[in-house]
């Protein structure tokens, strides 16, 4: 399959009152056409800021790109002008966010919001755009779409608002959908519906998806491949099946064991000791070293190598075993 999105050695630097700080450190991920990749991490792992960098939505006063490349369909996004990037963002790459209420305009009817998106990228008449909007609402399984076009966001439930967000994102038939924790604010039964909807739409439209989440349960249900981040570094990437069956990075293993699991009735959860480093702490070469049970001096000094666990499974750890990839 062709690579649609490729992020290589991306470095993002945050500018705070206490000086510059590396937020994302040498991140490399790739999404093939039609594939669903989950980007997993806790708060501060850099997963959302990576998504914003791909969309060209970084708050420039606070975060800048320190290095690396982002390529979409072979085009280097970081070399484009702001105007050229806007042609791509929203059109060929679309994004949905966690809280639909804050990303929808509260004083605009949802039909107008979908039309706005369509007409920003295509020259079509208002009437044609409105008809497309109704079709889009039907696509995201909103009942009585023609009537719903006239509703305001506050008249919809949380799940329906997220469906509207998805409809807006799909308005220009993007090749890639970036979904940043789209179900985190929803109840589980509604989350299940939205996940099923995204899965269906992704297949119907042969669209690739970059799904950002902290929930490994959601990953197991939505993604073909998974990339796990810790404090701006990639810890492990691979097919969901392999990473969940044979996790190779100590952080991945920790994450899988510290979630109470329906099948394993444990007396005690195996918690990852310590806590995420605070914004002022200096970072070890391997970010996870201070909390890692396997860490030794090399982990604090030398950045971890990329190790191939299998052809579709890579781990970034000094102690993972396997074959180092140059």
């Amino acid at each position, binding site marked *: 399959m062709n690579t649609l999105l490729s992020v290589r050695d991306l470095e993002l630097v945050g500018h705070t009152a206490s000086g510059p700080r590396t937020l994302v450190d040498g991140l490399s991920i790739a999404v093939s056409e039609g594939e669903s990749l989950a980007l997993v991490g806790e708060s501060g792992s850099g997963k959302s800021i990576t998504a914003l960098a791909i969309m060209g939505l970084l708050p420039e006063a606070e975060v800048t790109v320190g290095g690396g490349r982002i390529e979409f369909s072979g085009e280097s996004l970081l070399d484009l002008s702001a105007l050229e990037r806007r042609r791509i963002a929203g059109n060929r790459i679309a994004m949905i966010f966690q809280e639909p209420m804050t990303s929808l305009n509260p004083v605009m009817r949802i039909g107008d919001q979908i039309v706005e998106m369509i007409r920003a990228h295509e020259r079509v008449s208002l009437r044609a755009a409105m008809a497309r909007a109704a079709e889009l609402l039907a696509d995201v399984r909103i009942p009585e779409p023609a009537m719903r076009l006239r509703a305001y966001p506050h008249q919809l439930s949380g799940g329906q608002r997220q469906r509207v967000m998805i409809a807006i994102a799909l308005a220009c038939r993007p090749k890639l959908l970036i979904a940043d924790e789209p179900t985190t604010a929803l109840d589980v039964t509604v989350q299940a519906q939205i996940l099923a909807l995204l899965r269906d739409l992704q297949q119907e439209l042969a669209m690739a998806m970059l799904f950002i989440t902290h929930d*490994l349960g959601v990953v197991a249900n939505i993604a073909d491949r998974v990339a796990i981040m810790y404090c701006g570094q990639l810890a492990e990437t691979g097919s969901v099946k392999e990473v969940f069956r044979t996790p190779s990075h100590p952080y991945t293993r920790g994450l899988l064991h*510290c979630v109470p699991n329906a099948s394993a009735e444990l007396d005690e959860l195996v918690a990852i000791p310590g806590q995420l480093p605070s914004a002022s702490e200096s970072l070890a070469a391997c970010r996870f070293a201070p909390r890692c049970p396997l860490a030794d001096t090399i982990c604090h000094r030398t950045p971890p190598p990329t190790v191939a666990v299998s052809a579709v499974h890579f781990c970034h750890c000094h102690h993972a075993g396997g074959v180092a990839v140059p």
Partner: protein
Amino acid sequence: MNQPDDPQAPLLEVDALTVTYSLPSQRLFGPARKFDAVDRVSLSIGQGESFGLVGETGCGKSSLSRAVCGLAPVSRGAVRFNGTDLTSIGRLELQSVRRNMQMIFQDPGGSLNPRMRAGGLIAEPLEIHGVGDCGSRRQRVLDILDSVGLSRDDADRYPHEFSGGQRQRVAIARAVVIEPALILADEPVSALDVSLQAQILNLVAELRRKLGLALLFVSHDLNVVRYLCSSVAVMYLGQIVEKGPTRAVLGSPRHPYTRELVASSPVPDPGRPIRLLAPAGEPPNPAAPPEGCRYHPRCPYATAKCSVDGPEIRHIDGSRHVACHHAERIAELEENLT
């Protein structure tokens, strides 16, 4: 602590409790509207028992736990704690009962006074209830800091100097410092990162064993309840639809809503995907619940009876209670459907 005469008697008994909120009227000078967030709910928690209360947004689980400690308006029913009905006693008496009943909230940032140091925050319950003198309180605070995994130096720090997980530890220390008989915990780990959740859950489980605390644990996360609680009640639109031993209720649910909840909870195992059992849609507005069984508009097994006759919660098997007309045949009905 005043021990009940009968050691078998439940510590907390909630009896047909109804919590009613007033909503603003729709017209100026119009009649005030009422809304039962919790509707005739009964449950009991034994000494040292851990009881989970699960459900989705707006199901009334938080209102129920708040009503237990007098923080939500009770319109009917009773809350008996060690045999005393809390809804019929005065403020002063209630305060002395509350010594044995402490709360932990979801957001420790909002429930800890930002201008007090951790040591002062933890000592506050001791002061309010007049436990010990200044010196013994200080010692008690230092001891409890150890047992919640904070260092003794942390006593002098302010809430903003702690991370989210540490703040929740302070909140827990504050709740257990006077050794209550019951802890009411409302989503205490939902705001924390996954790797910290496990630490806090282990801490709660450990303190519970060590101090013999009973726990009413409110959560939307079935996996957490499965780990922490021996009994569980599932709420839907203000009512308990199923309650009993956790293993039975979440392992082989008998109420269609519990089945939907279990099937749609994601597990980190690609071999066990979530399943959609109910038709697309969301729970209706809790302020205007449907007639009959409240779940019937979403229930795939609903019959004509369900839309007129709301089922009472009844005993099914073991110590499980279910509020469904079809509870006995639910597995069979589900099989026919798929």
